[in-house]
């Protein structure tokens, strides 16, 4: 895996090729212009070197055509760079539907990962090759940044909200995982390994190890332990809105306006329930700030999501009958 002096990083994802293509284009342009300027400056400096103490240069004041030339040619070139770079970036921010989702929580100074099947890892990430993987990432304390150089992907992990990133690994192997956003004393130790595997091996890996609840099942359990189910019931009798089928749908808010019930909204509703009240309900829900960890939050979100995916949901935690 490691040689003594690599000069170019491994390409191990679909994204790596796309990023490198833009990179090579810029390297070529830069090399051309650097050399052009260097050669011109050196040639001029030597060719027109001063041969007598009293010598002066030509009075050339400028040339509008030349100025326009070296304004608009670079402009055209950088616009290509902009458009191409933006396209690559845009694609890196649109995870395909059906991507395999993995929860990542950063904290000083480790990466905690939970797969949808319940596998947990610390400072490691196992992914299958050839399948888009989407990371949903939160932080328990300060800013971190999840960075896999071989995949050319990176995204800051931000406390208080979620950030996502996605990639499709192409080459089995072990790759560096770094924290790229300075996060304190052991920032440089907040590293790990990403292991890309052939899908069958990945399945085997998934089913191995300690059996743990999937995030959805864990979330369902939390939903009961925190007695969420006394208000958010399966029917409209509860004091809180019914959560079945709301995920990803617009929700009418009290005082007008709507909000899409996405991960961020669910998170906000748990941590800061008064912020956006669903129309027709009283602001009576207490905050769960300090009562649930980032990981548990992600599990609750996974559970609420599952309520909108008929068939995939586990047995809903039946509301306790009053």
């Amino acid at each position, binding site marked *: 895996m490691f040689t003594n002096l690599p000069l170019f990083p491994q390409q191990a994802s679909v994204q790596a090729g796309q990023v490198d293509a833009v990179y090579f284009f810029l390297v070529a342009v830069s090399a051309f212009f650097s050399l052009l300027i260097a050669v011109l400056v050196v040639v001029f400096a030597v060719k*027109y070197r001063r*041969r*007598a*103490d*009293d*010598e*002066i*240069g*030509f*009075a050339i004041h400028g040339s509008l055509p030349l100025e326009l030339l070296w304004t608009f040619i670079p402009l055209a070139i950088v616009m290509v760079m902009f458009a191409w770079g933006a396209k690559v970036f845009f694609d890196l921010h649109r995870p395909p539907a059906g991507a395999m989702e993995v929860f990542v929580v950063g904290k000083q100074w480790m990466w905690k990962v939970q797969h949808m099947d319940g596998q947990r890892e610390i400072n490691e990430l196992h992914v299958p090759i050839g399948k888009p993987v989407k990371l949903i990432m939160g932080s328990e304390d300060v800013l971190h940044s999840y960075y896999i150089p071989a995949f050319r992907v990176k995204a800051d992990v931000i406390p208080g909200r979620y950030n996502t990133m996605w990639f499709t690994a192409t080459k089995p192997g072990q790759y560096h995982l770094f924290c790229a956003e300075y996060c304190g004393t052991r920032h440089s130790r907040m590293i790990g390994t990403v292991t890309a595997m052939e899908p069958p091996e990945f399945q085997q890996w998934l089913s191995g190890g300690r059996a743990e609840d999937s995030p959805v099942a864990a979330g369902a359990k939390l939903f009961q332990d925190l007695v969420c189910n006394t208000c958010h019931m399966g029917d409209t009798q509860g004091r809180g809105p019914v959560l079945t089928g709301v995920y990803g749908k617009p929700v009418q808010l009290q*005082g007008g306006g709507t909000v899409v019930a996405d991960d961020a909204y669910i998170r906000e509703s748990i941590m*800061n329930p*008064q*912020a956006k009240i669903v129309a027709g309900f009283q*602001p009576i829900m207490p905050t769960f700030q300090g009562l649930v960890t980032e990981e548990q939050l992600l599990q609750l979100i996974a559970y609420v999501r599952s309520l909108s995916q008929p068939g995939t949901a586990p047995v809903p935690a039946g509301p306790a009958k009053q």
Partner: protein
Amino acid sequence: MANGRSGGEHYPGPMHIPSLHGDPGFAGHSGEPPGMYPPHHPKLQHHFDDMADQAEASTLGMWVFLVTEIMFFGGLFMAYLVYRSAYPTGFQEASNHLNVYWGAANTVVLICSSLTMALGVRAAQTSAPPRTQVGWIVATMVLGAAFLGVKVIEYADKFTHHLVPGPYFQWTGKYPDAAEIFYSLYFCMTGLHAVHMIIGLGIMTVIAVMAWKRQFDASYYTPVEVSGLYWHFVDIVWIFLFPLLYLIGFHYH
């Protein structure tokens, strides 16, 4: 040399170093001999041509400084804008705990002080007697002090009601988090404004003493003028702070 680069071909005669130092462009001097200047005003600094020049420079300097002040407060207004748009109702709820009448009274006090300041500048411009000049400036200072007095009352009230952000912050209503952000911004913005008021009072004290010593008249009133600009600017900041902090929740309950 065939390419004509040597100075001689284009520029006959002695080589360029003596020639350019004999260049009338730089060495020439067409300024009046010293005797032609009008007698120096005692307040004219040596590097300015005349009093108008000096006044223009000072006024421009103050305006440039006020631009930096706009950006200085701008950072806080930026934070306000972001959080207000993120937590509109929370901010309204929090704003409700400010006393609109104290705020409005302070607005009127500051507007009055701006008027007295403007009249103070005018008094200097028109060479009014020092008594008049000092009178307007002292009136401005009294109003400024009154503003700060009201601010003290308001702060004390927030303190007793545990509305000062931090470990002792208590909020029984809805949106405790947004309220704490609101009050953090409230104290930063009004606090920074109050610091500017205090600095303003210090400047006005100096100006009043200078006016009392008969230093200002129609030929020289730059210090009053630029201090006035500062004072008016601080007033303008409050003109925005008042509605943004006090009035957004006025209709709320």
